[in-house]
């Protein structure tokens, strides 16, 4: 299980970096093609939208792997370590339930529906079921990560135990989950 986790996290990391870079290049190309070449391309906007869906959902699964989702922890902070540990494992099962029911089953049904209807995107012509397939895939990944975190031994700690409140001048501050306490994520740029 540990090995699968390591491999999945590494692959997800690469996939996210590749999709994100493609997204940036794609939109820069859109600006360039409109102004410099005078020939607006029709497919760039659609590609960027689909890429965003993929980054958001696969990224969400990646965050589950890291236990980095934004959490309001002001009530759980006061719990004893043992209680907190038990509660966090319960929370993993709540997330497992959501991912299984909504993302795998609901999203899977959405993929099946678009597959039977044979819908394709207007500009690129990619079948919509391919785009939507990221929902059940991400859901399955979340399920795996939840089981992984819920089943793992208490003492072994989190994969990124080294992380603490790290403040590096000229870099973004990151408060990372520190042991069992998942902290508020200040990376949220909207704040």
């Amino acid at each position: 299980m540990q090995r699968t986790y390591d491999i999945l996290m590494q692959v997800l990391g690469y996939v996210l970096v590749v999709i994100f870079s493609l997204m940036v290049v794609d939109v820069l190309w859109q600006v360039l093609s409109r102004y410099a070449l005078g020939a607006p391309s029709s497919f760039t906007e659609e590609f960027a939208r689909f890429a965003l869906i993929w980054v958001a959902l696969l990224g969400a699964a990646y965050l589950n792997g890291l236990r980095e989702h934004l959490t309001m922890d002001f009530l759980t902070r006061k719990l004893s370590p043992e209680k907190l540990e038990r509660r966090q494992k319960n929370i993993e099962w709540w997330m497992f339930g959501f991912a299984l029911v909504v993302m795998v089953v609901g999203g899977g049904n959405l993929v099946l529906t678009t597959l039977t209807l044979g819908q394709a995107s207007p500009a690129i012509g990619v079948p919509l079921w391919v785009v939507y397939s990221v929902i059940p895939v991400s859901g399955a990944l979340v399920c795996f990560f939840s089981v992984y975190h819920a089943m793992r031994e208490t003492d072994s700690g989190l994969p990124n135990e080294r992380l603490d409140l790290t403040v590096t001048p000229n870099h973004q501050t990151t408060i990372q989950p520190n042991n069992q306490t998942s902290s508020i994520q200040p990376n949220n740029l909207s704040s």
Partner: protein
Amino acid sequence: MSIELLSILVLFFSFFALLAYGVPVAYAIGISTTATMLLNIVTLPAITTVAQRMTTGIDSFALLAIPFFILAGELMNRAGIAGRLIDLAKSLVGSLPGGLAYVNVLAAMLFGAISGSAVAAASAIGSVMTDRMEAEGYPRTFSAAVNITSSTTGLLIPPSNVLIVYALASGGTASVAALFIAGYVPGILVGLALMALAAVMAKKRGFPPGDRISFSELFRNFGRAFLSLLMLVIIVGGIVAGVFTATEAAAVAIAYAGGLGFAYGTIKVGDLPSVLLASARTTAVVMFLIATSIAMSWLFSFESIPALMTGFLLDTVSNPIAIFILINVTLLVVGTFMDMTPAVLIFTPIFLPVVVALGMDPVHFGIVMVLNLCIGLCTPPVGTILFVGAGVAQVSVADVIRPLIPFVLVMVGVLLLVTFFPQISLWLPALFGV
């Protein structure tokens, strides 16, 4: 009990219970939405609808501006522009009494505007300024309080991701361009108000003026910060002039920030994967929240909660001023324990119809809402900026709260001004015709 009322109760009760239990916000929103859907619709269509709403909700070219501004901000941080902006701010306002406090406010405003992130501003500026201020006799807790409150101005001064989220939540009644321009005056007003308070306190406590800086030095510092400031002009100017959309502007900002980093020699090609991955993680935090929040706000309109709310408020409270105050107080309370993005996405569809019925401009309400929620970022129990600001100043959160109170009160004062004088937000957009 009617099914609508039962649905509302289930939705809110399960949402707050899950939040308090410690379930991540995005999942708490998703689970409570799904539970409520299952009350109303048959199982398979219900869960399929949630999955579909989540996906189609983020299927938006406008939202793409958010990950792009995140990446641009990350690149800007690594390019090391914070030091240049602090030097510029110092040569502009540093020689006044209590000068370093002004420098902190001004640098945080500039950095917040350019990076689009209050967290980045609080950490980048605070980590440098707290030590410098302590060396000249300012208590660390005072510096932290100044830094925390002034960092939020970057959320009003464009470009600002939260205003893009609001534009989406307003259902297109407020354009990104109008919101961006509208944010300038209120954002600068908050900064000036904080400086005014710092001036009063500096006089009372006898904080020293900084060194006088020669004109040539000012000129040199301006030159060093010029390229960073030029980016703001290109982005905001380009959006307002209609040269490109907010999303395209953000992509241009990435190219510009990256170019600047390469030119300064602070970013290398080898750094790019880690920058991209960090941005992808931040993006996923925000976008997954947006996905489940959009499913929830779809459920709101399905249950006609906004209409119920409008009817209820307009029937029970006759005085518009009382309604504005009531909404502001609600948002202040919400802001203390909820992060900004979900708060904007969940409460905009509920309150916007009410205030529009009372004749408020959606752009004006957006500014009021963001400024209001900025205050919540500086206050416990959930104050992201408060925690980061105290962290970089290496002081405990509890010790910052006392010096923080007057600064937060000043922000509330500006909030009241901005709420009741729409011209503060609206005259600049009107001037530009956006």
